[in-house]
């Protein structure tokens, strides 16, 4: 079991961690990790079949940003491993996969909030000091530690079996799990606040509220909001441009104002 557990943990590290390292390249999807685990455990055929079955189940689940469902990578890895060692095909794989996928997601959230999350200010400090080497080390170091710890879930999951995984999940008080989900949603407020600090200017701050209200009430998708924003910005920029042209013209001696309204304006 120890060898198998190590191999499955390795597959999780390579696929789930690797997907984050090389650009969310879909290495962590069931259709990839299932066959890999099958290959490592010596039953590629079963791996492919289970990978395909679980991919069909998890196809709707993409964990980007705030992750909400079971993590498909670890779920597939452990599910496939059990299906190969214990037997029983994709039905067994799926029932075993779900609890470990949920546990995996919780661990992933924990690492996301507490491990990497706490280094966010460190990154800022290093940038201010211009410590490039350290930024690079931290950038990759966090990745390695994060996914090493994560793959331990698969390692112990295989060692102790699915019942124990379910029991462990039940043992964590619900309010902690729920609290972490709430945190994941609220922590983005800090990121938004940091962007605001970069963009805030009392004269145009009102547009922040415009964006908020439009999405909150009209449920506009961000693409539509961007289009709207660009239109508003163009109108304002055009106005500013005219004013700046007028200002320039006003400075010059030989001003030729063609519009009568503008003449009135200057007469005042």
């Amino acid at each position: 079991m120890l060898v198998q557990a190590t191999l499955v943990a390795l597959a999780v590290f390579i696929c789930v961690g690797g997907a984050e390292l090389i650009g969310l390249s879909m290495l962590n999807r069931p259709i990839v990790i299932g066959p890999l685990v099958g290959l490592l455990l010596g039953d590629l055929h079963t791996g492919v079949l289970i990978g395909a079955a679980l991919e069909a189940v998890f196809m709707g689940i993409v964990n980007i940003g705030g992750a909400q469902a079971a993590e498909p990578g670890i779920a597939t890895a452990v599910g496939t491993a059990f299906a190969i060692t214990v037997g029983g095909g994709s039905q067994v794989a799926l029932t075993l996969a779900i609890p470990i996928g949920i546990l995996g997601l919780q661990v992933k959230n924990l690492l996301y909030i507490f491990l990497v999350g706490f280094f966010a200010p460190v990154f800022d400090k290093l940038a201010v000091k211009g410590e490039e080497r350290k930024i690079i080390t931290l950038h990759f170091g966090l990745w390695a530690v994060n996914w090493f710890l994560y793959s331990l879930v698969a390692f112990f999951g295989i060692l102790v079996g699915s019942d124990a995984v379910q029991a462990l999940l039940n043992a964590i008080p619900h309010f902690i799990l729920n609290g972490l989900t709430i945190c994941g949603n609220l922590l983005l407020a800090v990121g938004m606040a940091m962007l605001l600090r970069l963009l805030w200017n009392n004269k145009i701050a009102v547009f922040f509220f415009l964006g908020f209200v439009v999405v909150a009430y009209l449920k506009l998708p961000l693409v539509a909001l961007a289009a709207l924003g660009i239109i508003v910005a163009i109108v304002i920029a055009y106005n500013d441009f005219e004013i700046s042209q007028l200002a320039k013209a006003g400075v010059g001696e030989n001003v030729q104002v063609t519009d009568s309204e503008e003449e009135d304006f200057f007469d005042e």
Partner: protein
Amino acid sequence: MSNLTKEIPKEERVLLRKIFWRSFTLYSSVSPAKQGGSGFCYSMMPFINKLYNNPEDKKEALSRHMSYFSATIPMSTFIMGLTASMEKENSMREDFDTTSINAVKSSLMGPLSGIGDSIFWGVIRVIAAGVAVSMGQSGNVLAPIIFLLLFNIPAVVIKYYGTFLGYSLGAKYIEKLYASGLINILTKAASIVGLIMVGGMTSQMVNFKTTVQFKMGGTSVLNLQNMLDQIFVGIIPLGLTLLCFYLMKNKKVSINILLIAIIILGILLSALGIA
């Protein structure tokens, strides 16, 4: 497309290619408050080092690109290329307003991700998975490879050319803008779009729902969330974001403390049964 890359001097092409390679690691150390901030900074390093000889300028540029960044990876390099061209302008001009760099960044990441997410996650991934699943169900061992190729070839191609497109578009336009003195107007316009987008993202991504209900005789007489929604939809996320902003800007509260406070708040809210 090849014309696009040829117009750029060779030395800069090499640097842009480095940005492209480094951008793969955008989300290596993804965290709630920064998302791909460190990855963006890492990607920009070769360019920053080339442009700024003065250590102070370099530090400023590094911290500029350490801020929150989140975009669909295949679309991210377009923004990096554009940012690189603005950094180049900044290094050559004394009067460059550096807030315009982050204004452009934050106004672009929302819409580009909106397009990118739906194309890559919504369409290409689903097509690739659909093809691969039907192959896998009949036991074809090539299924995972076909899946990865179907998804990653378009993603990487767009990512590669995006770097150069962003850079050459940016360089050309910024040159013109400076010559005509339009940059201030444009910075303001970009900041407006940026603020609107941040407002929209705050509404869409910062979420809070309370489950508090007051019951009388078994029927709910007051649903707090409904009440809050009647006052103003998203009043809590908006208030929290503004509070964080206020604390950071005016009270100089460190982001560390804010992060810890929010974690405690989240668990507390859950423990008290408020959310």
